[in-house]
């Protein structure tokens, strides 16, 4: 019984094939080639567009030491307030949204994808996961408790500035001095100079030994000269902000500079 059924199916298939062949042969060859050409061209276009989309990143990373105020800044950007306060983050905060200050603007605004990466040293490896999509990095520094943490901050900054993806793609970096509303906060120029000095010392003492397996793939600056941020391949700017009082205009400027509205 089965064999008969299979035999019947075979005959039916063959008939269909013959009919299809006749149909195709009936179409003038020009139309056929044109149709195939259109299909191939569309596929090609789609691939190219996908490639382009992947290259343009729209992510801004917020990093810095633990306690510098990244989570507060994240919520200020998103909601305009930091609600009831924050504690040490254990996981990254991600969000794609329109900046809170721009919600009143009319028209279509491109949302920004912002990632707040935890600053605790044990969670450093998380930064690498997001670096590939970054269009800009904001390194948040606590301007009040700056000097006790200057070594740790400079080491972290050095690690970021010498990562391969940052150097090759020339990702711009904003050095954001947070908590400037406090009276004892240092000025941004002081912070910039101190960090340059510390990184200079790090250049001298850093060999292949760095943290457990993060390796410095590039060296910074020019040999024989003191290090300044202008020597970096990627653009480094300095700005001030205050998370608690919502004074984040310079940060928003940086974001909009690299993620067009």
């Amino acid at each position, binding site marked *: 019984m089965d064999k008969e059924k299979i035999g019947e199916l075979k005959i039916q298939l063959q008939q269909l094939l013959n009919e299809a062949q006749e149909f195709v042969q009936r179409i003038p060859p020009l139309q056929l080639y044109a149709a195939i050409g259109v299909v191939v061209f569309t596929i090609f276009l789609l691939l190219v567009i996908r490639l382009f989309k992947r290259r343009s990143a729209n992510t801004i990373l917020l990093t810095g030491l*633990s306690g510098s105020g990244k989570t507060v800044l994240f919520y200020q950007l998103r909601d305009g307030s930091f609600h009831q306060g924050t*504690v040490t983050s254990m996981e990254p905060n991600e969000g794609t949204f329109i900046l809170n200050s721009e919600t009143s603007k009319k028209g279509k605004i491109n949302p920004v994808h912002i990632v707040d990466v935890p600053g*605790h040293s044990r969670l450093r490896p998380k930064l690498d996961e997001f670096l590939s999509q970054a269009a800009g990095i904001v390194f948040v520094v606590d301007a009040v408790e700056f000097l006790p943490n200057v070594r*740790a901050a400079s080491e972290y900054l050095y690690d970021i500035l010498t990562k391969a993806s940052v150097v090759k793609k020339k990702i711009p970096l904003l050095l954001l001095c947070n908590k400037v509303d406090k009276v004892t906060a240092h000025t941004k120029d002081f912070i910039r100079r101190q960090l340059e000095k510390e990184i200079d010392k790090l250049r001298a003492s850093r060999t292949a030994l760095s943290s457990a*397996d993060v390796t410095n793939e590039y060296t910074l600056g020019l040999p024989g000269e003191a290090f300044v941020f202008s020597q970096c391949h990627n653009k480094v700017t300095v700005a001030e902000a205050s998370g608690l009082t919502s004074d984040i205009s310079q940060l928003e400027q940086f974001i909009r500079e690299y993620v067009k509205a």
Partner: protein
Amino acid sequence: MLEQLLIFTRGGLILWTCKELGNALRGSPIDTLIRSCLLEERSGAASYNYDAPGASYTLKWTFHNELSLVFVAVYQRILHLLYVDDLLSMIKQEFSAIYDPKRTSYDDFDDIFQQLKKEAEARAEEMKKSKQLGKPVNNNLGRKQGQVQNGSVDGGSKKKSGGESGNDGGDGDKSRGRPLENGNLRNNHVGKGEVPAMVNANGKENGASKTGAFDVNKLQKLRSKAAKKTETVVNKVPKGEPNKKITKKNRVWDDSPKESKLDFTDPVSENGEQNISVVAADEGESMMDKEEIISSDSESEEEETGKDSNVDSKKKGWFSSMFQSIAGKANLQKSDLEPALKALKDGLMTKNVAEEIAEKLCESVAASLEGKRLASFTRISSTVQAAMEEALVRILTPRRSIDILRDVHAAKEQGKPYVVVFVGVNGVGKSTNLAKVAYWLLQHNVNVMMAACDTFRSGAVEQLRTHARRLQIPIFEKGYEKDPAIVAKEAIQEASRNGSDVVLVDTAGRMQDNEPLMRALSKLIYVNSPDLVLFVGEALVGNDAVDQLSKFNQKLGDLSPSPDPRLIDGILLTKFDTIDDKVGAALSMVYISGAPVMFVGCGQSYTDLKKLNVKSIVKTLLK
């Protein structure tokens, strides 16, 4: 009375705090909890103690893994609140009902909270009353358990652990005795001499007598204190003996030549030395400076071995797990996680991870996965594996910078020598690795000086002298039988005089139970306040690593006369070339002490010094 109750997301935003309990918390207990407990993979512990000037709190927490929420309750340590666990789980249930990722203020939760709190308090009152009746029965039970424990475990210190754990409403015995913290916080000095070497049986057995039957534990405390006293007396006697042996005169059997001729080292080596030293200096680059190439095809390997182990287990289990993985099970329960975790724990133990550490790690991973929703097309075992891998990377990533060269330069600028003290038990390789570190530092143009503070073992000073001659660096020695603390002090003074940047201090090996020797060591560290206290441990050690490190840290903390004692800052793992892939000792040591592994010794020549490669260790551990 609760001091505070917080609900916050894992990303750090506080969602709700109880506004009624408006007392501001002294210090920053929540941040410390996160940094020293939850991020250290100790989230399986029952509670956490926090000490700040003016207040001492106990914190309890629970997670809601699916929504990434953390619920923390803070209360004064002297109060033994019984209803906290209950309250936390009820709050978790209620809050998850009203939680919405977009919302950031939950004021309506206040009323619900008040209600729940009243319920929980009422329930606790009832339980207390019923417990009072059952207390005498409980006492006997607890005592019997304690005795069985004491009998089977040797060492007075272990007896103490039986007494100290299970105290005070289930304080995390796992989190006690961890006197190493950032800054000046002393988190666990509730009483002196608490031993954190917890055997898991402890926690489980005493769990029954957790709530209220603390007088049983007091009895055990008294008993163990008596035992401790006899131990110290016993220990003093053997210390006398070695001293005697050294001062004993050599026996003269007949008219043989005097002993002075027994020392053949100096004249012969004088001529051979120069050649040797030139050769030594050219042994090549220390492996510290060489990069390790990490192969990135680990993912496929892990998947395949996972599949194999699945097939080995029952066929039914495989089929149902495949079905579940496609369907995506609702919520992970502890019972689902158990088989996968057990397999992981056994796997870790075959890789020479200490049993307690493996247990604690599995508990912590379970706490972070419970209640989570399985994504479709993932097996439970692969989720557990991924969570464990993340936890291992987190533990092995150093908490602070391990860039010694940077520290050396900083000390140089201040004009002081950078002092490193090598401590450890007998025979782990302190002197050998000291020489390796000296060789590496020399290659980076640092002036090194050795200090021979091992004044006990015969040949120790000569050993260092030989190394110093080969490396052509100065050595400070005072021979044998001198007080090591004084020798170290003079060595540091000599170093600042002759312009050495680094002083490497070699100490005698000592067992962690040997009280007088540990006292001498803590005196050495107190008197000289070194920049780096390096614990040298061998990678061959198994469960003893936990005991060694915890006792070293504890003794250094307790026996030091200063209020802010120095503890172990770093670990040097030796004999790494002998262990093949049983690399678990690294994990045990880092977990129990919190100190990063700064160097790894992998051979006996000068260049065999590496840095720890976290990714490859994790890969090896989970294979």
